C-alpha cells in the first residue's frame, strides 16, 4: 500500500471507530452518581478485612489473582528482556568511561540515595494503610538505586548492584506471591484466601496477608526493575556495534 492509501484507509476507519465510541459513551452512567455496585461492596469488604487502603484490599486480597497475573507479566517481561538483550555473538563490549560529575550533584545523590530507599521501603510497608504498596514502592526502590548512576557513574552503579542476587530476588518475589496463595489451600480454604489474623484496623500489622503479599511484590518489582534497567543500560553504555571502535560511552 502506498503511504497515502494507508493513511486514508486508516482515517476512514478511525472516523467510524470514533463515532461508535462516542455513541457508546452516551450510554454510560452519568458523571458523579453516588452508587456503584462494585465500589459499595469492595469498600465494605475492605473494612471487614481491616484493610484501611481499599485499593490494596482490592489488589492484594479481593482480586489478588489478577495481581498475581500482573506481577507474572512483569516477571515475564524481565525474563524476556534478559533473552532479547543478551549479548549476541557479533556484539563487542567496551568498558564504560568514568564520568565527570559536579561535586554538588554528587553530594545531592549521596544524601538522596538513602532517603529514597527509605521512602521506598515505607511505601511498600504501608501499602495496606495509605496510598502505595508493592508496585509503587518497588519502583521507588529501583529508581533510588539509580541515583548512583546520576550522581556518580556507571561503574559505581555496577558496584552497588548485585545483579545475580537481584535476578534471583525477582524470581523469589514472584514465586512467594504464588506460594503464599497455597497457604489458603493448606488451611482448608480457597487459593489466596487470608490465613493470618486480621489485626487492628489502621495498624501496620492489619490486613492479614495483604502486607506480606505487598512485601513480596515490593521485592519482585524493585529487583525486577533494576534488572530490566540494567540490561537496557548495558546495551546503551557497554555494547558497541561491530563497525564502531573505541572505548567511549560512559558516565
Amino acid at each position: 500500500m502506498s503511504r497515502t492509501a494507508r493513511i486514508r484507509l486508516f482515517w476512514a476507519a478511525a472516523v467510524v471507530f470514533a463515532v461508535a465510541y462516542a455513541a457508546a459513551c452516551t450510554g454510560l452512567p452519568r458523571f458523579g452518581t453516588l452508587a456503584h455496585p462494585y465500589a459499595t461492596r469492595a469498600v465494605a469488604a475492605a473494612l471487614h478485612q481491616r484493610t484501611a487502603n481499599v485499593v490494596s484490599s482490592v489488589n492484594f486480597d479481593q482480586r489478588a489473582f489478577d495481581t498475581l497475573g500482573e506481577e507474572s507479566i512483569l516477571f515475564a517481561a524481565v525474563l524476556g528482556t534478559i533473552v532479547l538483550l543478551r549479548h549476541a555473538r557479533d556484539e563487542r563490549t567496551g568498558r564504560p568511561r568514568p564520568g565527570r560529575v559536579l561535586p554538588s550533584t554528587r553530594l545531592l545523590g549521596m544524601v538522596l540515595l538513602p532517603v529514597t530507599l527509605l521512602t521506598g521501603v515505607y511505601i511498600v510497608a504501608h501499602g495496606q494503610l495509605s496510598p502505595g504498596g508493592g508496585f509503587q514502592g518497588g519502583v521507588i526502590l529501583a529508581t533510588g538505586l539509580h541515583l548512583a548512576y546520576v550522581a556518580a557513574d556507571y561503574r559505581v552503579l555496577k558496584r552497588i548492584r548485585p545483579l545475580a542476587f537481584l535476578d534471583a530476588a525477582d524470581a523469589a518475589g514472584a514465586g512467594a506471591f504464588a506460594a503464599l496463595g497455597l497457604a489458603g489451600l493448606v488451611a482448608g480454604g480457597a487459593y489466596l484466601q487470608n490465613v493470618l489474623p486480621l489485626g487492628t484496623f489502621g495498624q501496620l500489622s492489619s490486613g492479614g496477608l495483604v502486607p506480606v503479599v505487598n512485601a513480596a511484590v515490593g521485592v519482585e518489582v524493585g529487583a525486577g526493575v533494576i534488572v530490566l534497567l540494567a540490561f537496557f543500560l548495558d546495551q546503551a553504555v557497554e555494547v558497541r556495534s561491530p563497525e564502531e571502535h573505541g572505548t567511549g560511552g560512559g558516565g
Partner: protein
Amino acid sequence: MRTADLLPLAVAVPLLGAVALVIGGRWLPRVATDALATVWAAMDVADLAWLWAGTGDGHSVSWLGGWYPRRGESVGIVLAGDRIGIGLALLTATLVLAVIVYSWRYFEEPPAQHAGTFPALILLFEAGMCGFALTGDLFDAFVFFELMGAVAYALTGYRIEDPRPVQGALIFGIVNSIGAYCSLLGIGLLYARTGELGLAQIGSALQTHRADALEVVAFVFVMTGLLVKAAVVPFHFWLPDAHSVAPTPVCMLLSGVMVELGVYGAARVYWTVFSGPHGIPHPHLRTAFVAAGVLTALVGAVMCWQQRHLKRMLAFSTVGHVGLFLAGMALLTPAGTAGVALYVAAHAGVKAALFGTTGVLLDRHGSVDEHGLHGRGRDLPLAGAMFTLGGLALAGLPPFGTALGKAVTEHAAEGRFPWLSAVFVVVSAATGGAVLRAAARIFGGAGPRPQEHYAGPETTGSGEEPEIRDPQRRIPAPMLAVPAILLCTSLAVGVLPALAGSLARAARQFTDRTAYAAAVQGHAIAPAAAVPDVGWSTEGVALALASTVLAALLAAAAIWGPALAWRGMGTARAALRAAGRSVVLPLRRLHSGHLGDYVSWLVVGVALLLLVMAA
C-alpha cells in the same frame, strides 16, 4: 482436596516452576534444568488430567480468596471450568510438555548465567494460557491474555542474531497490544454499566438493559483483542510474520493452541455475556462470524498454497484452519461446538508435529525453503513419513481426529449453510495439499525443480540460520519421537469414541448460558439441549476422503503439471497464471510486512465489525 482447588493450581504450578527454573538454572547443569522443566510440565498435565476426570460433565468452580458470592454478589474472581475450558488447558499442558521434551537438546547455548530462561518462559506461557482457559472473569481473562502475549513476544524474538525474528516479534507485539487495548476499552464500558467483571455476572446484569450502542460497541471492542489473537482476517497479518521466524518449539505452541485460544475466548465471552435475551441476537452474530470465518479460511488456504517457506506455509494453514474453527463455533449449536473442539484437539497434534519435523529439516539443512531443499530430505525417511502423514491428516484423512472434527462440524452446518461443507473440503485440501507437495519435493525429490512464477517479493526461507549449530551431529531422539507421539494423539482423538462423547456433552454445557451462570452461583442444573451426535458417519467419511484425494491431486498437479505436454495444457496453464496474477498477487501484496499497513487493516477490521454489528 477438592476438585475445584485444582483450578488455581493449574496456574500456580507453572508459575512456581518458572521461578524454580530461573533460580535453579543459575547453578544447575543443563541436564538438570531440562529434567526440572519436564517434571514441572508433567505436574501440570497431571493436575489438569485430574481436574478433567473430577469435573465430569459438570463444572468446577473456585472462588479465589474465599470470596464466595453472598446474595448472588461477590467482590472476588471466580475460576469456572467445564470440559471445553479444562480440555483446552489440558491440551495446552500436554503440548507444553511435548515442547519441553522436544527442546531438551534444541538450543545450542542458553543465555549465559540464565540457562533456565527458555523453559521458564515456556512455563509462564503455559500459566497464561491455562489461566485464560479456566477463568470465569472478564478482566482476569484479560490479565492472562496479556501474560501469554508478553511471553509470546519474547519467545518469538528469541534468536536475536537474526534481525527477522526481532522484526516479527515487534509486529506481533504491537498489533496484539492494539487489539488488547480495544478489549480493555470494551471491558471498561461493560464495567461502567454493570459494575461487574465476572462473565456470568455481567451477562445477567446486561439483561436488565435493552441492547443499545454501548453494548454493541463493547461487544465489538472485547472481540477485537480476541480476534486479533485468533488471527481472523483482517486481523491476521501478524501471524505469518511471527510464526515464520519464531523458534520451532515456540511455533508448535503458537499455532497449536495459542491462536485457537482466541476463538475459544470469543465463543466463551459471547455465550456467557452477550447471548442473553437483550444481547446480541444469534442470527446476527451467526451471519457475521460465519462470514468472517469463511473469509479467513479462504485467505489462509490461498496464501498457504502459495508459500515455499515451510514455516510460513504452516502459519497460513493455521490461518485457514482457524477460519474453519470460527465458522464452526459461530454456528452457535452444540454440534458445531463439539466438532470444533474435536478439530482443535486433533489439529494441535498435527500442526505441532509438522512444525517439529520442519525443525528437523532446519537442524539438518539450515533451510526451510521448499524449492532449495528439493530432494535433500532423502536422508530423513522417518521425518519424511511423518511430514507426509501430517499433510494427509491436515487434509482430513480418516481416522485422524481432524477428519472427525471436520465431519461433525460440516454435519452441524448442513441445515443453515449447506455450502459450508465445500469450504471445509477446499480449505483442508489446499492446506494439506501444500504440505504434501512440499513433502514430495523435499523428501522424495519428486518432479522437476520448480520455477519461479510471480515477480515481486517472496519469502523464500533459504539462508535461515540453523537454530542449532552442529549440523553433523545425529538428530536428537526427542526431535523425532515427539512429533510421532503428537501424530498418535491426533489419531487417538479420532478413534476414541469416549473422548468424542465427553466433548459432545461438554459442548452442550458450553453453549448453555443458564447452566454456566447457575454453576458459578453454586447450583448445578442440567443443560436443556440434546447431546449432539459425534460419531463417524458415512457422509463424513466420504467428505473426508474427498478432501484427502483432492489434496493429493492438487499436490500432484503442482509437482508434475508443468512438465505435462498434453493438448490444451498450454491454455490451462495460461489461464491458471492469469488467475494467479489477478487474485494471488494482490493478496500477496497485502501481506507487505509493513507495520503501518497492518495497523490500518486492524482499524478497518474494527470499523467493519462495528458497522456490521450495528446494522
